[in-house]
């Protein structure tokens, strides 16, 4: 069994080099040193193709660092196997675009992790699924297959699927990508509720890490920011430090569509 580190760190990367999912010989980020404490809300920003998705997948233990270490809840992700399934399930991951299972309905997608991990029938999980769908305003789409669902709702259904097992760490890859204004606002407010402690988690605060290619939407004094640029991972700090940063990489991520800088 893996050794356990201090309870004050949920995620810890030391000298981690991260490669892509498609080609394990191609490094996208090198020498990452990063710690995430319980209850923190991190935004990892970077331009498209900067390796945000691979970085997040490595942080979630879905990819292994090619060098260095990545520890989740004190457990080295290199050693993640069947015996560490319980640790694995403490992490929720929402892919860009949702990646729902196309052959299943929204309700089935959301129910699947719970049914599979706890060996429960459809009727046994119906109440829990219904409650979560209601929280996520997905009840009208419960019986729609993901192919018939608009992108806005697909993303939300994927978030519901990640939350059904009540994880302690939630990672979201480009959660605002392709969302309309109303859905963006809803998601930002919902994530803030999760950070503060949502009734779904019995009021327990959730640790959140989200990636983005546009920092402006994530402005908030309680969030921490980091940037991926040219294979380098840099922790910037809180919003004030982002706004006053002289880094060209940060400035590029704050550029308005018109070209003006915030």
């Amino acid at each position, binding site marked *: 069994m893996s050794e356990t580190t201090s309870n004050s760190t949920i995620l810890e990367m030391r000298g981690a080099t991260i490669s892509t999912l498609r080609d394990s010989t191609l490094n996208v980020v090198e020498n990452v040193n990063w710690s995430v404490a319980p209850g923190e809300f991190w935004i990892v920003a970077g331009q498209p193709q900067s390796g945000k998705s691979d970085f997040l997948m490595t942080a*979630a233990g879905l990819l292994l660092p090619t060098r260095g270490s990545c520890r989740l809840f004190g457990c080295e992700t290199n050693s993640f196997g069947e015996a560490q399934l319980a640790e694995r399930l403490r992490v929720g991951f929402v892919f860009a675009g949702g990646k729902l299972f196309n052959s299943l309905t929204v309700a089935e997608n959301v129910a699947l992790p719970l049914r*599979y991990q706890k*060996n429960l029938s459809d009727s*046994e999980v119906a109440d829990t699924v219904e409650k979560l769908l209601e929280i996520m305003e997905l009840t009208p789409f419960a019986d729609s297959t993901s192919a018939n669902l608009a992108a806005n709702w697909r993303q939300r259904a994927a978030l519901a699927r990640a939350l059904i097992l009540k994880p302690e760490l939630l990672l979201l890859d480009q959660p605002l990508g392709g969302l309309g204004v109303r859905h963006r606002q809803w998601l930002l407010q919902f994530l803030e509720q999760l950070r503060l402690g949502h009734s779904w988690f019995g009021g327990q605060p959730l640790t959140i890490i989200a990636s983005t290619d546009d920092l402006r939407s994530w402005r908030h004094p309680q969030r921490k920011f980091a940037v991926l640029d040219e294979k380098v991972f840099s922790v910037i700090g809180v919003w004030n430090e982002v706004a006053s940063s002289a880094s060209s990489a940060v400035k590029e991520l704050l550029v308005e569509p018109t070209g003006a800088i915030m």
Partner: protein
Amino acid sequence: MRGNLAKAFQLTNLQVFRHAATPKSYTDQLGRKLFLALLTVQGLGAFALITLGVILNKFSFARSVMQPRVRHEINRAGVSLLPMFFFVALALGFLVVGQTVSALAQVGATDYLGSTMVIVIVRELGPLLTAMLVLARVGTANVIELGTARALGEVEALEALGIDPVHYLIMPRVIGMALGIFALTIYLILGALASGYLFAFLQDVPLTPGDYFKQIAEALNWLDFALLALKTMTFGFFIAIVTCYHGLAQPLRLEDVSRVAVRAVTQGVVVCVLIDAVFIVLYLVT
């Protein structure tokens, strides 16, 4: 989970070879082809062992989710193919069995009817034809479904939810195909033998149904039943392994799916013929 798939696929991470410059000499080209074939065999072997391990270790895990999936696969690789097999059994009976019975009767060799039918239909044609038809109907669907799921990132999504893709995606297909081919072969053999007699009867062959089926029954021994079950289940297991392997191993892009479907079917046919060859040796030895 993630490790399982990675172990099998890293053995045959063939993209480097497939996209390398074509060797200039024929011997080099032949060498590369041979090397690729060996890597594929190695990868398929590893994948088969991993799948077998998962089936043995996790057979009863998450029953409430897996049982409907296994039933669905048995239905897909077995029950839903029954109408087609009824038609094929009629055709096989009329074309092969009936004509053979007539020809044997014409030369007065009806004494050899039983052993001929057992060798041709029960041991060879029945299982092989069933395997080929299931490969064409269900095997291709396997590659395309899994390839698309892989390309759309559904395999990573399963892993993110702590669901073993081999258990969730492969195990039901392997069980469904093994049982499906076994059951369909039995129906095909019975249908072909019955319709074969019908054809012979229509041609006024002087043979009573009692004599016909008695001869066949006498030519059968317990080993035929045991090897038939083993052979058909081996066909099902390996067709599922080859098609699932190609569906999951290579395509990360949608445009790759059709290419790997063709490759999987070709390799499926080769694997079936090789298994058949192994069983011929077994029949000869016993």
